[in-house]
């Protein structure tokens, strides 16, 4: 049995988590403070994922960029592939919080959504 120590990123508490495992099979997860931690430990051990936040160019908006996020976490290995695809985007204004601007970004199965309202200006 091996032991892997993790730190939960689910909330500002940052609980230390303990995963006991045989090779890649999880035997036991302990020290989590809530169910977010338990879920995080499982995912982090098997397939670490992160939400990506960045910005996208907007045409004729009241601001030149709109902040965006991946609606769900994406595989950590894919972060820079996703960033590359986002950097090539330019969208039309107006946009609203929650608008999907690219579904299935970089083949991750996750949608890219706006996180701020941008008005159109002529």
């Amino acid at each position, binding site marked *: 049995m091996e032991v892997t120590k993790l*730190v*939960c*990123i*689910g*909330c*500002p508490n*940052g609980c230390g988590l303990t995963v006991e495992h045989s090779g890649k099979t999880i035997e036991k997860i302990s020290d989590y403070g809530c169910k977010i931690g338990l879920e995080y430990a499982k995912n982090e051990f098997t397939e670490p994922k*992160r*939400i*990506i*936040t*960045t*910005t996208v*160019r907007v045409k004729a908006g009241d*601001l*030149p*960029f709109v*902040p965006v*996020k991946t609606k769900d976490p994406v595989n*950590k290995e894919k*972060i*820079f592939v996703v*960033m590359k695809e986002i950097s090539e985007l330019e969208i039309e204004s107006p946009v609203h*919080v929650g608008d999907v601007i690219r579904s299935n970004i970089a083949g991750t199965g996750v949608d890219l959504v706006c*996180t*701020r*309202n941008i008005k159109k200006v002529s």
Partner: protein
Amino acid sequence: MKKLEYDLVVIGGGPAGLAAALEARKNGVKKILICERAPYLGGILQQCIHNGFGLQYFKEELTGPEYASRFIDAVEQSDIDVKLGTMVMEILEDKKIISVNREDGMFEIGTKALILAMGCRERTRGAITIPGSRPAGIMTAGTAQSYVNLEGLIPGKEVVILGSGDIGLIMARRLTLEGVNVKGVIELMPYSTGLIRNKVQCLDDFNIPLLLSHSIVEVHGKDRLEGVTIARVDQKLKPIHGTEQYISCDTLLLSVGLIPENELSSKLGCEIDTVTRGPVVNEKRITNIPWVFACGNVLHVHDLVDNVTQEAEIAGRAAADLINQAAAEVEKDVVIRHDQNIGYVVPQHIDALNNKEKTVKFFLRVKNPDEHVRLVVKDNFDQVLLNLKKTIVEPGTMVTFNLPRELVTKDTSSISISIAREQAE
């Protein structure tokens, strides 16, 4: 000069100002004006495009702009007036506020109550006196955040970050995502001052080194920054001779703390706490001037925006009570004291006879990290009012606790708060 009349004026349209205005409106205040210096509402949340906000308040994880939009939408749907691009120049003793903007020029606002919600600003290179020349490429982490997230500009190609505060950690990740080579984060203290989750997801995820107990002893370059010399520091935080190393970089970001922005409050005559650098307030967030309230980062620098919102709602309700003439007249002031392990406590005093809310929520910061401590609250009769166990305390994370009102009586004149290592049994 144009003259306006309001029941309540809120200075600052960030998370504190928005929540305070909405809460005052909810409690019956009719004519409310928010004055915001920037061309949009939301304050600094608008450049904090990362997620991690709102877990406490909304029970879901939001980005900064999303968190702000919940309050902005509510304000826009209300009859609260907003003046953007508006800078308050002076607050006068006779409840008048002198402001200026492009549309109205210089104008005067009369009010019954005022809520200060101006937030804070970053400490700069001047505040920490880094020796060396003054090349371009040295800026605060928040300035870089504004460049990258609002204007789409990259501040440099090779970056060193001084200070492990959360903004510095967040910018390490943000710049890495944009293809910048972040060479490391240098921290003077022997511990990271930001949240541990940010060290994990912003530095460890991208193998960015964090050098604890290190400082910058020299900056190099004339027109543009070319590099920095760093050195290890001893227990007194003095650089150790012989440990110097050179790191080439064209950009240095400073994430070395925040200072509440209280020029307006000081000039008006608000008593300022020398530790928090914000006004001294009671539990209703009333300053020493009875019609002036303060909340959010102008009062003390918070770790989470969720706490700012809650505090702003307290101030909003209290301002509504004053305006609606529902505030209790009789006051019995209780002073809050603390021991030397605690940096500060907010509120600094409470009204023993105010019984509108069942508990008083206290915010405090410890001076040094510690484990397995007890937080003990006593009154002036040495009676223990609360005795709480805290597993981990650290300066970067605010400690909060609720004191039930019923424990404070008309005979209470002071309350003392201490934090000490648990005695082994």
